[in-house]
């Protein structure tokens, strides 16, 4: 065998040398969409397990949810044809849809799916658990009225609007209960199988997933609104940004994401390409550990807030990735307050440090994931805080290291990022303003504020109150109050930049609209020959 293959290689190599010139490579076919990105974080394609952005983007095309949120933030029907809200809950009427397997979508599947999400109880469940749904009450709160009618009762901690947005997330995808149950082993709810297969009613089905290589989606010809225009969608893992850029230029990929700011910049104003800058409603954040002797002092936190050159960093580093903003609510959201006057002011920052009793400064470590643009952001913060006398030692690591340190409160400063699950104040701010129990024993590592050991009982109570306020006007007032209180308390989770996801598209591609929570649907994407 070895001899055979070696012989073959030699022959092939010589052959190739003689015909090298005429080899040419066609651009991607018209009925296939090729997306280049980094698949390194995709660990599962089970919608009730995976929460990583790239996985969500793929899963949102394999599965439908009861409702969908449009890129501009409206809730629209998906599997539910209509719904009625009353005091106690929401009643959904399902439309006549089929799973890719041919099984009809029934109320039983909806009940099974939401139950499965909460009983698997992984990160994907956090979104519903945060408002009072859990594995113990789900069977009571989510019920099938008849084959085509589902009833979801309020948990007591949620309004209709907040529930609908949560039901629009990829984590509440409706799976084919008949199909999934065929693949259960060791009481795993079919998770082992679902990680690498699909059982949905979405416009595409999963043909193949090779981790860190590619994902191939096939069109679901029987999709309820008709077969998608693309016969196949191929998502290719291209870990190197410069290589991705070359592939896009050459036409080997049609859509590119996860490029560095520098490579992105080469497509600005370039003919044949467009850049989409998708707002996420989330932020690049400087987390400060309030358990630290220096950082527990609000004056020190304020000194740091005045010690960062937001505008300069926005211009030179963030580029298409971010916009300076220190309130965890994008400024175009309704009821968003204007930015506080935090800007680089070395004198003021030094004065605040002196008032706090640290005239001579001190040293801190800053942990960050070694990833665009966070690593450059860390260096810039290091440089500007040095001017006020705070010496920063940067420690970079991979995702799992840094996240583990964050979860364990094992850091001084750390740069995480967030995203919003609905386009309003609560959707983007909730994770910054709620920390029900700050004690170490609470071990609430899933809570963003807890990780910073920042105790905010007043703000937590206000957040809970706002989330249960049915009157829109009063809710708006509470939203303003929340943001003001957040700024007043000198946050230990300091938002620095509103986060955007830039993608570059070949102009052959039409109908691709990036979604703020990565629920980008591809069924109406088309491609033309012309470039």
């Amino acid at each position: 065998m070895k001899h055979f293959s070696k012989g073959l290689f030699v022959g092939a190599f010589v052959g190739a040398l003689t015909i090298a010139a005429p080899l040419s490579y066609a651009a991607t076919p018209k009925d296939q969409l090729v997306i280049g990105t980094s698949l390194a974080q995709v660990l599962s394609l089970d919608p009730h397990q995976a929460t990583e952005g790239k996985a969500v983007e793929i899963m949102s095309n394999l599965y439908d949810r009861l409702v969908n949120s449009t890129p501009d933030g409206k809730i629209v029907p998906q599997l539910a044809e209509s719904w009625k809200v009353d005091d106690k809950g929401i009643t959904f009427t399902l439309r006549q849809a089929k799973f890719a397997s041919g099984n009809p979508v029934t109320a039983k599947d909806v009940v099974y799916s939401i139950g499965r999400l909460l009983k698997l109880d992984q990160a994907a469940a956090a979104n519903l658990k945060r408002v009072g749904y859990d594995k113990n009450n789900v069977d009571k709160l989510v019920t099938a009225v008849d084959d085509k009618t589902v009833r979801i009762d309020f948990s007591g901690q949620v309004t209709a609007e907040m529930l609908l947005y949560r039901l629009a997330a990829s984590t509440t995808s409706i799976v084919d209960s008949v199909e999934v149950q065929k693949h259960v082993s060791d009481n795993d709810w079919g998770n082992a199988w679902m990680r690498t297969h699909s059982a949905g009613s979405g416009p595409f089905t999963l043909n193949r997933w090779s981790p860190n290589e590619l994902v191939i989606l096939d069109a679901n010809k029987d999709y309820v609104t008709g077969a998608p225009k693309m016969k196949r969608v191929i998502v290719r893992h291209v870990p190197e940004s410069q290589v991705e850029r070359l592939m896009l230029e050459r036409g080997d990929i049609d859509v590119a994401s996860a490029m560095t700011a520098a490579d992105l910049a080469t497509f600005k104003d370039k003919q044949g390409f467009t850049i989409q800058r998708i707002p996420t409603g989330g932020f690049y954040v400087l987390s400060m550990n309030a358990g630290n002797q220096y950082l527990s002092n609000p004056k020190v936190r304020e000194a740091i807030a005045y010690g960062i050159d937001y505008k300069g960093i926005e211009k030179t580093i963030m580029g298409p990735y971010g916009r300076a903003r220190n309130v965890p609510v994008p400024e175009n959201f309704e009821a968003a307050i204007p930015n506080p006057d935090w800007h680089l002011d070395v004198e003021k920052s030094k004065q605040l440090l002196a008032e706090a009793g640290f005239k001579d400064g001190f040293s801190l470590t800053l942990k960050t994931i070694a990833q665009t643009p966070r690593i450059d952001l860390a260096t810039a913060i290091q440089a500007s805080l040095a001017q006020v006398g705070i010496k920063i030692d940067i420690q970079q690591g991979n995702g799992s290291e840094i996240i583990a340190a964050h979860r364990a409160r094992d850091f001084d400063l750390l740069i995480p990022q967030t995203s919003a699950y609905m386009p309003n104040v609560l959707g983007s701010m909730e994770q910054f303003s709620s920390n029900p129990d700050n004690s170490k024993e609470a071990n609430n590592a899933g809570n963003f504020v807890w990780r910073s050991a920042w105790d905010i009982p007043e703000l937590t109570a206000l957040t809970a109150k706002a989330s249960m306020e049915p009157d829109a006007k009063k809710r708006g007032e509470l939203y303003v109050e929340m943001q003001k209180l957040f700024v007043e308390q000198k946050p230990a989770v300091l938002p620095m930049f509103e986060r955007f996801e830039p993608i570059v598209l070949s102009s052959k591609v039409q109908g691709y609209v990036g979604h703020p929570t990565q629920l980008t649907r591809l069924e109406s994407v088309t491609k033309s020959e012309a470039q």
Partner: protein
Amino acid sequence: MKELSVAEFGRRLAHLLVSLFILLCVTFVIGRVLPTDPVGAIVGELADPAAYAAMRMRLGLDLPIYQQFFLYLNGLAHGDFGTAVLTGNPVSSDLAQAFPATFELATLAVIISTFVGVPLGLVAALFRDSLIDKIARVVALVGHSIPVFWFGIVGLVIFYAGLNWVGGPGRVDVFYEGLVTPQTGLLLVDSLLQGETEIFWNALGHIILPAIILAYAAMAYIARMTRSFTLEQLSQDYVIAARAKGVSPAGTILRHVLPNIAVQLITILAISYGGLLEGAVVTEIVFSWPGIGQYMTNALMIGDMNAIVAATIIVGFIFMFLNFLADVAYALLDPRMREAVR
């Protein structure tokens, strides 16, 4: 002679196994001590502590490290490398998928580096200090000192994006993906076996550039070593005698020098081959090549220790095994070594 050879063989084999075991221990300990968190990677950043603890237990990470090690060894004894966090598959089946891609690339690279490196070294030695020798030395030096990573990007810019001579990253153009069923796992072979000649040519266009770039550094090394082996031989009496008898330079090289340096060359080629399999890591990242290097890198990124340990052992084993083979070949082919053994 035969008994002694067997004893020698046994000694070297034992040496190989001990080295492997040490490699295993070191990799395992480093892997478990590293502050990575595969559990967080699986259950997700926002999972609650109970789900986190349950997954930790399922992976056996709550046990003391020596127990984990014994469990691992026990699994290994049954041919079980554990389950990969990243894919949820047994690590062995992941490796069976990733390895052929690397093997294909490294094998082509070793062929290229041999067929270019050996003649280059011979010519350089034969025309010592001539222009050809100098060029060969510069080529070798460049190959030795420039990072593969940089070469890869430049190669892509020129030959893929600029000249359109070769295919881009990946083993095949994207729209051909998934059309060939893996049999041997070697795409060039499988596509031919299945009569997909179009895919074969496309795959060849994709492998040429990474193989040449990967081969370049090894080629430089092989050329350098061939040159010095040849120079050593050229000053030997038998060569001088042969030339005095009127044998042409080419004839001297082919009939006299080459057979005499063959044994040394085998060692060099074996080391290079091992190095190529290892060195494929960087090349694979640049060229999005779904081989063992990329598999390892991604496993490292999420702290997937079963995958890292297994891949390290496989690469280490191949490296050591090739060295072992070279040693054995040396002992078998070289009369002087045989004497020494005796």
